[in-house]
């Protein structure tokens, strides 16, 4: 892998070339690791042989330059700078077995991270450089297309068949509406009855006298209501006269 590192400019959107370092445009890097990788690659050695100390120095110099130019530096670059300064001092000072993890381990981990990012950066560049479908190579421009004709295998069983017939027959039988005969005296019957009984009666007679005999209270109510309406109708026709002394007082009837 390391022997065939692709040049940075093979990226579709190349990061700034190395000699643009003087511009110190930290913002064009995708984070501190990205910047570190660029600096590491500028050492022109296999990343496995990289001098972490030299890399740390370059990074810190870079950030210092940016600060000198009063450029906005994102916090994560400064955090990385602080961490690298700490790492550098750890690497330079005599070994202290009390410190865990050791600066050497931290440096090795940083190197491993850079190797992994570098590997993926190269892999991405190699992917993009391939003959790509729709750009370099093409599928047929006007395929006739394949057709799928769906043929249904209809499914139904005997029970569904006879059940369906049952439903049809049930639906087709004319529904029988049976309304219970209610015991009532219709208006027609009441008019007929009242006019017959009143006849040529000249005495004022209370309306209850004209009601048919019944034990059914429902029927008695109905008969009273119908007979009352009948007297109103007969009075309107001028055949009978009505008299009531007061509201809710007995209603008297006689021939007109």
């Amino acid at each position: 892998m390391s022997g065939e590192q692709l040049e940075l400019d093979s990226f579709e959107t190349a990061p700034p070339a190395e000699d643009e370092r003087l511009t110190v445009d930290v913002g064009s890097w995708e984070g501190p690791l990205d910047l570190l990788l660029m600096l590491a690659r500028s050492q022109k050695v296999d990343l496995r042989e990289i001098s972490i100390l030299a890399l740390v120095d370059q990074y810190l110099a870079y950030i210092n330059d940016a600060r000198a130019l009063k450029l906005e530096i994102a916090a994560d670059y400064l955090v990385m700078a602080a961490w690298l300064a700490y790492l550098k001092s750890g690497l330079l000072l005599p070994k202290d077995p009390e410190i865990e993890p050791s600066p050497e381990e931290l440096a090795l981990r940083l190197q491993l991270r850079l190797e992994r990012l570098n590997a993926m950066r190269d892999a991405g560049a190699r992917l993009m450089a391939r003959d790509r479908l729709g750009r370099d190579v093409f599928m047929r421009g006007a395929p006739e297309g394949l057709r799928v004709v769906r043929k249904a295998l209809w499914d139904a069983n005997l029970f569904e068949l006879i059940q369906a017939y049952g439903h049809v027959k049930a639906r087709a039988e004319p529904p029988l509406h049976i309304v219970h005969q209610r015991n009532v005296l219709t208006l027609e019957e009441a008019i007929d009855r009242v006019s017959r009984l009143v006849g040529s009666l000249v005495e004022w007679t209370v309306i209850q006298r004209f009601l048919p005999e019944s034990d059914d209270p429902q029927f008695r109510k109905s008969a009273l209501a119908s007979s009352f309406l009948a007297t109103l109708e007969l009075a309107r026709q001028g055949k009978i006269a009505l008299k009531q002394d007061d509201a809710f007082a007995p209603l008297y009837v006689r021939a007109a």
Partner: protein
Amino acid sequence: MTEDMTPDLDPTADASRAVEATLFAAAEPLSVQDVAAYVGEDIDIKGALKLLQELYATRGIELVERGGKWHFQTAGDLAHILRREREENRKLSRAAIETLAIIAYHEPVSRAEIEAIRGVQISKGTLDVLMEAGWVRPAGRRETPGRPLTFATTPAFLAHFGLASRRDLPGIDDLRAAGLLDPVDLAFESMDFEARAEIDGDRDDPDLENDEDEA
């Protein structure tokens, strides 16, 4: 970037490869001039087209000229494999199974009679589905005014439903005994059923299924 991969081919072959790829990738038939716009003027395009035509003569693809424009197409004798049939199990719609039941119990029966018994119109698709399934066949015209076409079931119908003959269909009395003819309950139940069926998108509308069929 990989131009050097085919160094041994003679210029004719190279020209034919370029013309071949251009016609293959084109979205529409191309004239010789059109092709030249891609492969360059200094290539013998007509020679390349002739070569390709011979090359593909026995293949499943052929190079054809139509009105001065060239394109590849699949060989005519293979057209039949480019469409395939896929069989899928489909449930009969409620309308279809009721219609089938009516035909089975009353055959031969005209469409108007089926509608009279169902109390609902049947769409054309319903009978089509049943005929496509191979369960129903036209059974001649009735010699009444309008000479309506009648329908009857087929031997395939009997075979599918496991019946030796139509006499094996349960009679009305059997249906009643099985509770399949209870008027009030069933009326409600079936209304309920239809409502649910509608919600399920399995509508009492065979045309719907036909549309799916076409797709």
